[in-house]
């Protein structure tokens, strides 16, 4: 009877040990996830900032070009007006 109890206790202890081990593994999984999230979040922030700069450059170039186009169009109109005034 005593051996039985001892045997049951040993199994119970082993189960408790497994619980602790499972807790440790799960904590590890959470830490892995948290570390990856932290790493990726920093990268995402950097990516967003870079994307913002690229979009701004695209807009700046488009605006420069549009502005130049408009100025050239205006020079046509000025020219037409000049020709008309000097007829």
């Amino acid at each position, binding site marked *: 009877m005593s051996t039985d109890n001892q045997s049951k206790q040993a199994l119970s202890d082993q189960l408790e040990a497994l*619980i602790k081990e*499972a807790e440790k593994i799960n904590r590890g999984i959470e830490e892995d996830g948290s570390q990856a999230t932290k790493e990726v979040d920093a990268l995402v922030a950097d990516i967003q900032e*870079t994307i913002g700069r690229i979009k701004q*450059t695209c807009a700046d170039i488009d605006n420069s070009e549009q502005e130049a186009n408009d100025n050239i169009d205006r020079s046509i109109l000025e020219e037409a007006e000049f020709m008309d005034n000097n007829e």
Partner: protein
Amino acid sequence: MFDSSQRLDRGDDPDRLQNSDARHESGDDSREKGEDMSEEMLILSSKNRSIFKRLTDRAKKTARNIIRSVKDKIPGKADVCAKAQIVTNELYTHRHERIQLHWGKEVEAIQMQIDALQASAKSIQGQIDDFRKRKIPGVDDMILSKRTIEMQIHNLETQKDKYQSKYEAEQDKMIIGANERNRIASEVIRRCKDKMEPFERDLETLEKRKKSVDLAGEKLEAKHAERKKDLDDLEERKTALENALMMGNKSREEVKRNPSVKAIEKMIASGHKEMQKQKADLLRLRNEIDSQIAEVGAQAAPTRDKLFRYSRIKEEAPITNENVKDRNRKVHNLPPLPIRPRIG
């Protein structure tokens, strides 16, 4: 009046057309007001349309012809420099035709009068010489007539000079216009050159960061593989303990109801579930990043082409027009001309 596909077929610049469409849709629509909505008008900015509207009908016609002519000559991917060059050539052609017409009607008529008067003067001089040789009186009257003709020639020459000055003033104006268009194109080139390096660096950074995100995903997957091995090992040891409990006369159901066994099973399931969640979250994030990068990449591609195209142009001579020179003066040797004040 026309749609984008039709315009694209004719090799129009999609950006420019997009802008004209945007202007069209942004409450800048003049159709409702019954105003000129010709194709030439649609490509103009609202400010330029205002200038166009206040031109005389004759000036409008000239402007429309030039704009149409420039538009027909612009290739599919024309840049500002090409446009500036084409506009310079077109304006030169228009002005040159106009000047030729002017000379044809006015100066040539004057020249014909001068030629006729010079012939008369020559004839009178012949008569004067003949009368003098033969000692016939009346030479003084002939000299007076000749002087009158010479005065007329002088007056006509003066009038011709006025036309010449006008012609030269127009040529000067042409040079100023070409300088101005050079300046406009150079400004775009300068801005592009300034942006080129940081833009390329940003695109490279984006690629590097994307790779880093992929690497972070791979690292997490490797860690998950280790954790999964640990959980599988735990599962095996739990099964071994369950078997040991069953050997102690406990039924499978009784073993499964054991609180410790239940707790272990719950934790193993929770570990797997957490890894799946992390994997799914990372995948979703990577997809979002990929899609954002693809979107900005598509937007950046034409800008990159423009930057390369403009950066290759030598800034000192973006536009040259061999035709812009005077027949009588070396106006192309004039010092850089000041930029004239704008209309409006």
